[in-house]
């Protein structure tokens, strides 16, 4: 039996972040004789809610060989050390979800267990005091991490905040330089093969026909191929994540200071993001249309800006959920066409990246066996569910007294996977990660503690240590971390020196 021929032509439909990320990564196949074509239309606006990212984006850029400073300069980019959550637990409350690890494990006992024990005795600060990213972000400071495990700076992790439109443009230049062919045009019609219902080609307005073997749907919410053509189906998660709209607006930077973090502020019927870039600030109010009118949501947004709005606010409509199969026949949906989760933990770009990574690992041949497809869909489902659970946690564990939304969130039945995590943590601060989880233990701990879930007990192994010695260790860790944070340059100064934005 001869194996089916390898894929020789890949067609990406839709530019924007997803399309150009896929195109840039797939350039690696071009030397093996694969053609990569991207079809997009300048007339179709792209959705740019995902301007903040999480640390794994660094490995995506590294894979492409992108220079960090050059990329920051060309995307109006800034550094992100974590997220500040304001008013989520209750009004006037604040916590941070920093990247990077908390403290150091002590003789095999998790740092947060030791911390919990001392906290009970009133001998430990809030847990942020033991995270170097949390201290640096609060101080508005930044310095690149180092790999030497002996250095405190190795406990750091960072991501970026950037203009998604400029990022797509940056990747477009990268991809076109390496042989990706871009075709301008709007898709008018998608014919299917009679034999098996696979996509045969896309036909543009004006009848230009673009043939391909593998099609990547990056058409955003329209899901032109995966849904409008292949009718794959949608699974709604709106019963857990009830916010269904966002009103967004850029605003002027309030001053020279550029915070190295994203802020998420809870309002009575949703929450508002604040993402600082070098030249402006991105803002948006995510809300539940059953609880608040569009006009009132817009007013809330405008009332909570720290700089003048730079245009009229615009409204986005969405529903939390996922495509039933992100890979169907010879089509793979990437980005918003494959699923949507609100940008509370800045995961949109990461989900695209992870889809690309899986696609490269499971690249089919022209036989399109079900095996690769099923594995891709299995991994995609697991990952989306884990991110979904993490986002639900923020809503569910609240003590807010205003707004029916927050009461409903507190009282709703949550997924079993999240229920198990909450039970184990609440009982004794225990934590088990599921397969390949995106958010590490330290992220879950930051949000669980931040949302007011303090474990009732701690690991009995922590009892074997002497309290005085532990208290001394913790205060040393805090001092070291605080000193390291204070010694860093201010974030805006570091940017000005290393990655000042240029007009592209």
């Amino acid at each position: 039996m001869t194996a089916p021929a390898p894929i020789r032509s890949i067609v990406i439909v839709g530019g924007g972040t997803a399309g150009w990320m896929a195109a840039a990564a797939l350039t690696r196949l071009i030397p093996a004789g694969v053609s990569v074509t991207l079809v997009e239309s300048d007339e179709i606006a792209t959705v740019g809610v995902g301007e903040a990212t999480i640390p794994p984006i660094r490995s995506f850029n590294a894979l492409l060989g992108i220079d960090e400073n050059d990329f920051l300069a060309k995307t109006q980019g800034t550094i992100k050390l974590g997220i500040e959550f304001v008013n989520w637990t209750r009004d006037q409350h604040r916590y941070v979800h920093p990247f990077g690890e908390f403290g150091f494990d002590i003789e095999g006992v998790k740092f947060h267990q030791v911390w919990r024990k001392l906290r009970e005795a009133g001998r430990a600060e809030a847990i942020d005091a033991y995270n170097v990213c949390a201290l640096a972000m609060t101080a508005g400071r930044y310095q690149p991490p180092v790999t030497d495990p002996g250095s405190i700076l190795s406990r750091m992790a960072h991501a970026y905040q950037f203009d998604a439109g400029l990022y797509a443009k940056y990747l477009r230049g990268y991809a076109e330089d390496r042989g990706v062919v871009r075709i301008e045009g709007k898709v008018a019609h998608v014919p299917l093969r009679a034999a098996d219902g696979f996509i045969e080609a896309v036909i543009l307005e004006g009848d230009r026909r673009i043939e391909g073997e593998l099609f990547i749907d990056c058409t955003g919410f329209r899901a032109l191929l995966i849904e409008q053509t292949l009718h794959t189906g949608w699974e709604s998660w709106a019963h857990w994540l009830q916010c269904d709209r966002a009103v967004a607006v850029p605003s002027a930077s309030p001053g020279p200071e550029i915070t190295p973090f994203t802020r998420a502020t809870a309002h009575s019927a949703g929450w508002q993001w604040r993402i600082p870039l070098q030249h402006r600030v991105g803002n948006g109010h995510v809300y539940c249309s059953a609880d608040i009118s569009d006009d009132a949501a817009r007013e809330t947004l405008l009332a909570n800006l720290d700089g003048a709005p730079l245009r009229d606010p615009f409204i986005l409509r969405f529903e939390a959920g996922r495509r039933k199969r992100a890979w169907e026949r010879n089509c793979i949906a990437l980005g918003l066409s494959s699923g949507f989760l609100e940008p509370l933990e800045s995961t949109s770009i990461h989900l695209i990246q992870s889809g690309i990574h899986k696609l490269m690992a499971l690249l089919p041949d022209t036989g399109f066996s079900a095996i690769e497809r099923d594995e891709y869909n299995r991994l995609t489902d697991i990952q989306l569910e884990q991110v979904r659970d993490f986002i639900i946690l923020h809503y569910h564990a609240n003590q807010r007294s205003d707004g029916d939304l927050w009461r409903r969130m507190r009282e709703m039945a949550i997924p079993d996977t999240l229920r198990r995590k909450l039970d184990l943590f609440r009982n004794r601060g225990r934590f088990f990660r599921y397969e390949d989880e995106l958010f590490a233990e330290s992220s879950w701990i930051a949000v669980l503690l931040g949302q007011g879930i303090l474990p009732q007990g701690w690991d009995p192994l922590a009892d074997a240590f002497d309290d005085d010695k532990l208290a001394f260790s913790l205060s040393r860790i805090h001092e070291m971390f605080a000193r390291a944070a204070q010694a860093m340059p201010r974030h805006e100064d570091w940017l000005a020196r290393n990655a000042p934005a240029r007009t592209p």
Partner: protein
Amino acid sequence: MIRSIGIVGAGVAGWMAALALRRALPGARISVIETEGPDWSLGPFGPGEASLPGLESWLADHGVEEGALLRAARGGFSLGTAFSGWAGQEADWFLPFGTIGAPIGTVAFHQLAARLRAAGHPLRLADFSLAAIAAASGRFARPSPDPRSVLSSYGYGLHFARAGLAEVLRLASGLATAGRFRRALGDAGITAIEIEDGAQVSADLWLDCSGPAALLAGRLDSGWESWSEWLPCDRAVESWNEVEGVPPPYAHAGAFEGGWQRTVPLVGGQSGALLYASAFLAEQPGAVPIAQGRRTRAWTGNVVALGAAAALVEPLHGHNLALLQNALTRLISLLPTAPDGPEPAEYNRLTASEADRVRDFAILHYKTNGRAGDPLWDQARAMPVPETLAHKLDLYASRGRLPVYDEELFDPEEWIAVLDGQGVRPRRHDALADAIPEPQLRAHASRIREVIVDAVRGMPHHGATLREEGLLA
């Protein structure tokens, strides 16, 4: 709160549990109760036992000095396992502890190897493993801690007599046995154990380390899932042969018509276990029945089953000790605070997944065997396998990728080494490997080979290392 722990079974599992809990709960009272018969706490698989890499650091953390253990237990070092007769009646292959080859960028070595094979250059994966080559030439030295050195590219396991291991663990725990088991008391849970002098021992939590007999867990409604439809061996015969000379630094698993023979070399002799399927081989002298499978709920009420009382999987690799070690770590991190807490359910979920993944790994050896014409093995090749394994096999056969599930004890590289050794070849390799020019691939492969052969030449013989550490006269 757990103030007292009772352990039934004073073998390897019992003393390892005692040592781990002694350290984790310094204030708790721990009572170890002996049981009748040989130490089958990890299964009736021979007087010698083998470990996977990772046990040595557990031992060090628990105050057991490696040299002292090996001296007390006629021990030696291990670089992997040789498998003969599995891929075919005359074929053999080696599963090394450590990496095989090196990737180019993000393209894994076995994908590069597939590309080279497709271009007409046959090669064996083990020829690109330092551990495999050192094992073949009978050499051993501990790995280098310098990550830049090729001498850091492997790990090692240990071979030892289980009686010596149990004794060293007991000494490290600082405990003595509380008496000999007569019977367990209590219906819904275990309230106490009556020992031979008629006294009763009580405890808040019981650990059943009594092996397949499962003296405590077997009394409770803990369930048992049989794996006999996939793992056909249902008899084991233990043996010991006196042998002079230097033991080889690897274990051996040799398949024959009716099953397979395990050999773990020790100083002064070989520990053997014959595993066979009674439907295909006449009853052998000294055989004991074995039931492969796992307890549905290893933690039931106030009893936690450990070792062979929790799961029995034939010892193709040193996984039985590793499962015990992981179970203890998991148990300690989940020691309950309240009677109806979520901990037992979580413990059982994780423990069951881990055992099921080891089960799949063991079944893999049968399902992919190449012994055509032997009824036992023909049947094993044709059998349907668990869905989790079927998915792995399908994906590998299609393109040389392996899905990873939760709680895998064996990593993808080890799966690939077994699959490749058994002669399973993916239909297609990674498309990224095609983007690398063939001369570059060939140069990459020969450079790795040269570096490894050069490094092995400089390593001492296993016998020299054993003598230097006072393990061999």
